């Protein structure tokens, strides 16, 4: 039973599907809860705002590895049965929501205050002001940094290997222990992550440049 280079690459590529799927799912659920968090952070009562801010600061001020450990080992104490994939998804969702809420808050605040005032002058309710006037403008600014964050998210999924989710890095550890060729295995893994992330980085940069030209 010997692994050829093709065996290694084939199995790594198969595992990369799980990295891609986890990234996509965490991005969607993190985006939705990030929107909610943004709404609470900007529109809630003072107490709610403080809570939302604290949530964001805790998740940005602690290692993702610890967050994953707490979800993975903590929920069972509450009687919830979480398999590694769900713990991974939950942990990444929470972290992504905190980061995205903060990124998007910057985008909303980048819209000039006069826009809120103008919308208010038209007699719009505050929620309508946000929905009809502010968000469409903020959204345009938000796209490039959001795509940029997706790169961070894809890279973050590597940590879920430590709580036992069978994504790319976990598979590479297992293959490494059957082949004893760490240089090849981890080198290939790095290249696969690069192939996943670099197009996103490029897209983010192109979008940013296009936006800069449009708003000049």
């Amino acid at each position: 039973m010997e692994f050829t280079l093709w065996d290694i690459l084939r199995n790594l590529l198969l595992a990369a599907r799980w990295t891609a799927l986890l990234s996509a799912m965490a991005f969607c659920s993190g985006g939705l809860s990030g929107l909610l968090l943004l709404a609470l952070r900007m529109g809630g009562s003072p107490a709610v705002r403080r809570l939302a801010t604290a949530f964001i600061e805790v998740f940005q001020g602690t290692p993702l590895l610890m967050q994953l450990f707490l979800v993975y080992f903590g929920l069972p104490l509450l009687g919830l049965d979480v398999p590694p994939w769900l713990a991974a998804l939950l942990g990444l969702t929470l972290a992504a929501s905190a980061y995205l809420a903060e990124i998007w808050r910057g985008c909303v605040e980048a819209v000039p205050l006069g826009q809120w005032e103008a919308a208010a002058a038209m007699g719009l309710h505050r929620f309508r002001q946000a929905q009809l006037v502010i968000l469409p403008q903020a959204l345009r600014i938000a796209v490039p940094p959001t795509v940029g964050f997706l790169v961070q998210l894809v890279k973050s999924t590597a940590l879920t290997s430590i709580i036992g989710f069978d994504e790319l890095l976990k598979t590479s550890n297992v293959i490494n222990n059957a082949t004893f060729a760490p240089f090849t295995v981890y080198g290939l893994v790095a290249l696969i992550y690069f192939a996943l992330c670099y197009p996103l980085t490029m897209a983010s940069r192109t979008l940013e440049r296009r936006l800069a030209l449009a708003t000049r």
Partner: protein
Amino acid sequence: MPSPFRAITATALIAWSILAFMRPAQADALADIKRNGVITMGVFEDFPPFSSVGTDMSLRGYDVDFANAVAKSLGVKARLVPVTGQNRIPALQSRKVDILLSVGHSAEREKVIDFTAAYAPYYIAVLGPRSLKVGGAADLAGKTVAVNRGTLEDSSLTEAAPPTTDIRRFDNYNGVISAFLAGQVQLITVGNDVGSAVLARRPALEPEQKFQLLSSPDHVALNKNEPALRQALDDIIGGLKADGTLNRLSMQWLLKPLDPKDL
């Protein structure tokens, strides 16, 4: 707070609670296993010859064959869940798995989990290159030794090694073995069968067994207060021993007949 925000909050709260798959703790693990038709077993996946992956990424080894034999005797399907030395006891306690394979007995562990009869021999040994002179635990002073954190190898090495030993604890066997093969540590503490399976791949290092720390046959571990499951597993292990199945597994994977004294 404006009402649309409240609606969003409520929707999100409901979504979160749906996400939380409520499942109460099981009362009788054996009954649940029979009802589900599946027994979930935690095994290592970087632990040759007991369990490691083949080129198709499926697990193979002594533990894997044993797991299938146990499931067959119970009349259910075997589901193997990869675990690490660090997360497997929490995984058992939180009922992510029904049982664990390849667990050595210790008084510390006895406080939190139960054990069945032994089903495989296991000797914990210190291995290293021929050129390094190590005759016993005292010679470990000042040497670097890799070990899988939280395993019985870890606790027995920690107890036996002099204080100046540089013990490097890794998350899994992959880390232990890779660090040794990369020359990052001088010695490793693993089961002697694991050691020989690994080291056969790297004859250039001329690795050899330095000394044995202790004999610690592998048991099946299960949660406390599961007398029915424990009795059923003990009966199965007795049966597999009596009908020669364990001996066959030993010949195939450990390359020697099973010595009843080792269990």
